[in-house]
């Protein structure tokens, strides 16, 4: 449907067959309209994904490969130097993308599976189930999640599985609240009533009637929840009770190399070393926030009011 700007005719427009844009075309159109911040965010996220997937190919050395010189300076051989027992920091940063981000993604997915399905079930079946789950979530949310995670980790021990399970369960409370709140608006719709009357089960109503209609807020929440989970895991690892050595992880890398910061006066590069993994965490969360911001703006249907 190409039109010259000067030769517009209504007849031409009506006569032209409008083709439905393919998914890919719509995606490209959206991307072209996206603001700078969102594009920046998407490029950064893509970069992290590539790093995480191809970590063993991209990193010059192994994850736990020890070299003779601990705390080596930045050089061509070791781009960001080595850490307290002589492991290459650049390689560990790349493997950290795989470990830290991978664990955070797994945790967020699990939190959404638990919280989302329970939230949907509670919204559809507003009986004792809803009451019970909502009160339980109220109590769980009354405990700050970092503190509760610390208690549970001290009881069950800091393994990766425990970490994922504990944070996922604690965070699923917030997913539950959101899912329940947004689906309550959809449950009262006539088409849900119709589905119920024609005898569809709970699972069908959840998956086919309600889920497609509450997707946008859930996707945005997924991004924000991921940031939160990611920061919590990084904080726990930084405190020494999260991901355990020798697994390369950004939070614990900051802690291990923190003392280097005091040498910044003599060698600014050494002072920057402990900040690198922290900056890697910050950059990813900023990028996700930018993309979520744009996504929310797009799906909420608000126009720019200028």
């Amino acid at each position: 449907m190409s039109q010259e700007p000067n030769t517009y005719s209504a007849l031409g427009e009506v006569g032209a067959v409008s083709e439905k844009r393919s998914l890919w075309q719509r995606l490209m159109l959206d991307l072209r309209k996206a603001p700078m911040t969102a594009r920046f965010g998407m490029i950064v996220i893509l970069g992290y994904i590539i790093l995480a997937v191809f970590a063993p190919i991209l990193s010059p050395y192994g994850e736990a490969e020890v070299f003779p010189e601990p705390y080596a300076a930045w050089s061509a051989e070791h781009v960001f130097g080595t850490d307290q027992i002589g492991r290459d920091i650049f390689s560990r940063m790349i493997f950290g993308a795989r470990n830290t981000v991978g664990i955070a993604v797994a945790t967020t997915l699990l939190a959404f599976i638990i919280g989302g399905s329970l939230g949907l079930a509670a919204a559809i079946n507003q009986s004792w189930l809803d009451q019970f789950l909502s009160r339980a979530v109220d109590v769980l949310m009354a405990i700050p999640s970092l503190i509760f995670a610390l208690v549970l980790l001290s009881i069950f021990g800091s393994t990766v599985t425990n970490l994922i399970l504990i944070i996922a369960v604690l965070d699923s409370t917030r997913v539950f609240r959101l899912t329940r709140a947004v689906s309550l608006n959809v449950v009262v719709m006539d088409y849900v009533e119709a589905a119920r009357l024609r005898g569809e089960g709970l699972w069908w109503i959840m998956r086919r009637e309600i889920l497609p209609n509450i997707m946008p807020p859930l996707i945005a929440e997924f991004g924000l929840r991921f940031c939160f989970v990611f920061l919590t895991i990084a904080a726990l690892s930084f405190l020494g009770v999260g991901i355990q050595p020798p697994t390369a992880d950004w939070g614990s890398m900051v802690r291990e190399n923190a003392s280097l910061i005091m040498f910044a006066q003599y060698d600014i590069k050494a002072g920057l070393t402990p900040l690198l993994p922290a900056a890697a965490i910050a950059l990813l969360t900023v990028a996700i926030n930018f993309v979520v911001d744009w996504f929310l703006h797009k799906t909420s249907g608000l126009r720019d009011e200028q």
Partner: protein
Amino acid sequence: MHPIIAIILNRLVLGIVTLFMVSLIIFISIQMLPGDFAEAILARAATEETVAALRKELGLDRHPVLLYFDWMTALMSGDLGNSYTGRGVIGADESRAVFDLVAPRLKNTLFLASFAAIIAVPLSLFLGITTALYRNSAYDRIMNMSTLTTISFPEFFIAYILILFLTSLFPIFPSLANVDADTEFFERLYWSALPALTLTLVILAHMMRMTRAAIINLLASPYIQMARLSGATPRELILKHALPNAWAPIVTVITLNLANLVVGVVVVEVVFVYPGIGQLMVDAVASRDIPVVQSCALIFAMTYILLNLLADIIGIVTNPRLLHPK
């Protein structure tokens, strides 16, 4: 009875019930410990008899319900139990009371948190009001970008950036918060300047954005339109017309952020080796000193619940619709 008092009483009861449930949850999760305290303290090599004897000494051989009531009654009288560290073999008990460990550190933490709050609250109000006043200006945009960025930063990143600049490159403040019970007030301020600054930056962004949003939200209401049409200047509009009605949401936001401050304190204390309750808890988690972990968790949860309750009550009390019932 005035309806507002009824609502507040209702909330207070709910808060106490929540607190009770939280203590129950903490207790139950500790009961789920594989093995139990006795096995956790004694080494793996301990014989069954030794474990049984210690279990008896700690009173762990009784029914869990009894244990819970014992714990609760002790808590009511301020007895938090004994720490596990220093407890080697049976009989030779050199462990310290958890209360003696917690009390001085709790004071330090409260000092740090109030220090941060005293800077952060007025500053965020000022920034929030001015950005609402000069909406869409360059100033507003820069503040918006930078707050969005700091929200995404982990606490320890902010802390180490501050250390890099204010300690390492330009030695103004110390990086280790070397505070004890005898430290003078002003010296204490100096030593805890960096941790307080970090905490300020952590909560500032949120508070500022919420204040701005609360005011801008109000600016859309009809009575503001009326004031604008009758010739009020933007400054009058915000300070005289919008702000009095925005206090309720703003105060709620502040209290909620102070609740977050309580949690943010954990990481910051560890970075600056500040002798507070957060660091105590992290150390106790690492050494699996359950009585200390349990007490610290309860204190954190209690503060968090109380502040949330306070936010709730302030929200109710300042709501004009509830204050003047028909």
